[in-house]
């Protein structure tokens, strides 16, 4: 086998790694508004994108406009993204729903800080988990990913773009202030070492094309605006042509399809990493920076003779039910540490259905859950 080309190494912030990942994934449009602690993503994009072949960077007047601009850019054929934090994420919710309804691929990075409201602008939290799931109004599917270290920031940003393009849907990447503001050595993968997925473009004549066709996969090809396929895009419930409709049978067809196109590909979308779970009696389920604390705690518990394991969630929604079920086959208890009052533990409990005790560790003081806090609960048995 030919020797692998050496990868470039850089010492980078989580936020910088997001930019590297986005550019590798083919992102050519960034629209945003500065907000701590996500701002570095925007600053670096403003320097990098204008120097790429077709990159566009624009600073908008607010987060509402940012979301509108990236949806517009995506409709015009670009891989587009924005990044924000708590208050900005709230402002983006309306147009996020539009992107879901109009099936427009975009990537939204939310670097979580303490809330509610202005909260703790410079401190980490994981309080936006359920907002990411249910923040925009109406019944809707959503893909929410997370990352717990700087290398994963790069990788999960690529994954976010790939999923957005593959499923014609917005994808949210939830980071936290710790992960975004930690510097680590990361490897930049070489071309060909990672998958890049781009939306399919229709090849049929324009008069045959239906932008919201009912298909098995549930995802229609998506032409860029201006390529000869003229169609209507709306946030109203619509028929297969995109024209507004209130007919119950058309409404239900659309709603079922936008859910199905994501639900049925759970094996592709639900990503986790398992550490020592195979024989674990106690399994910690964690995500983001807390997963790093949990990893150390699990290691220390093993050194102390307790069979502990870690199920690290890289996909938060749709919730990785399958992996949780597998862990539940032998685990005697679950621990869910998180920097909120218990948002992901709700999902864990829904899958657990009372089978084993689920203990939660919750911090809402703007501080990371430490390994020793988790270890203490593990050692309680």
């Amino acid at each position, binding site marked *: 086998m030919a020797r692998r080309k050496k990868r470039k*190494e*850089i*010492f980078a912030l989580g936020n910088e790694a997001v930019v590297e990942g986005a550019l590798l994934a083919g992102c050519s449009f960034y629209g945003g508004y500065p907000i*701590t*602690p996500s701002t570095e993503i925007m600053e670096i994009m403003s320097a990098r994108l204008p120097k790429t072949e077709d990159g566009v960077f624009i600073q908008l007047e607010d987060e509402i406009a940012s979301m509108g601009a990236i949806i517009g850019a995506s409709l015009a054929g670009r891989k587009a993204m924005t990044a924000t934090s708590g208050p900005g994420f709230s402002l983006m919710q309306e147009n996020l729903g539009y992107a879901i309804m109009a099936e427009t691929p975009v990537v939204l990075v939310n670097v979580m800080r303490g809330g509610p409201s202005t909260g703790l*602008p*410079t*401190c980490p939290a994981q309080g936006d988990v359920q907002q990411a799931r249910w923040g925009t109004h109406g019944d809707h599917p959503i893909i929410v990913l997370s990352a717990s*270290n700087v290398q994963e920031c790069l990788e999960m940003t690529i994954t976010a773009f790939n999923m957005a393009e593959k499923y014609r849907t917005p994808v949210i990447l939830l980071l936290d*202030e*710790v992960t975004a*503001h*930690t*510097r*680590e*050595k990361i490897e930049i993968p070489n071309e060909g070492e990672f998958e890049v997925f781009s939306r399919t473009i229709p090849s049929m004549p324009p008069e045959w094309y239906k932008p919201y066709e009912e298909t098995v996969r549930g995802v229609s090809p998506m032409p860029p605006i201006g390529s000869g396929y003229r169609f209507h895009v709306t946030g109203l419930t619509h028929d297969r042509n995109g024209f507004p409709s209130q007919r119950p049978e058309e409404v239900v067809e659309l709603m079922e399809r936008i859910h199905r196109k994501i639900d049925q590909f759970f094996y592709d979308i639900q990503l986790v990493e398992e550490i020592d779970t195979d024989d674990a009696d106690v399994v910690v389920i964690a995500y983001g*920076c807390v997963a*790093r*604390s949990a*990893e*150390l705690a699990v*290691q220390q518990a093993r050194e102390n003779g307790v069979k502990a394991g870690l199920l690290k969630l890289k996909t938060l929604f749709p919730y990785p039910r399958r992996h949780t079920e597998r862990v539940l086959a032998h685990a005697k208890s679950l621990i869910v540490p998180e920097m909120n009052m218990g948002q992901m533990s709700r999902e864990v409990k829904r899958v657990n259905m009372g089978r084993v005790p689920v203990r939660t560790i919750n911090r809402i003081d703007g501080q*990371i859950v*430490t*390994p*020793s806090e988790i270890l203490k609960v593990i050692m309680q048995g």
Partner: protein
Amino acid sequence: MKSPQELDRFEIRFSGLGGQGIITLGKIMGQGLALGHGYNVTQTQSYGPEARGGSSRCDLVISSKPISYPKAESLDLLVALSQEACNTYYPYLKSGGVLVVESDLVKQSPTNRFLGLPFTNLAKDKIGIAQAMNTVVLGSLSFLLPFVNQGTMRKSLESVLPSKIKAINTKAFNLGYRLAKKQWGDDVGDVWRDEEDLTRR
């Protein structure tokens, strides 16, 4: 270059006042250790109002193995460049850990086992600009820490600086290294040279 010394979560905290270049110091040292020396390094810092004046803090965790928890919990080395920082963070220093202070700004050390140099005045008097203080510290620490290769760290420093301030920083780095060697003595880093001591948790 000889193979790097085995490290298991060696934790450093740089602390002091906003404007002293503490975050830059941590960034450059972290980069040098990660890219130049091949260690795993996580660098975290305090953000927020305190980063714009007031106090400032920057942590490094250095390890030969992958690092799980990215923050510093019990410090092997505390660098305190202000009295307040010294008071605040001294309790986090593990037993046997080393305290390095700015000897003009830290008037009252919480322990009599510490290493000091008047970094700010050295930068002002010998280099000509107070802003080079953090580079003087970097030079001194490159002498103190047995796993840091002086040449590699200097090269790493030069690689991140704009060309017009490169020469002056190289001078500051060398000054720090030289003075640490002279004042602190050749065997000052021996506490960490003992490999068994380092790998014990």
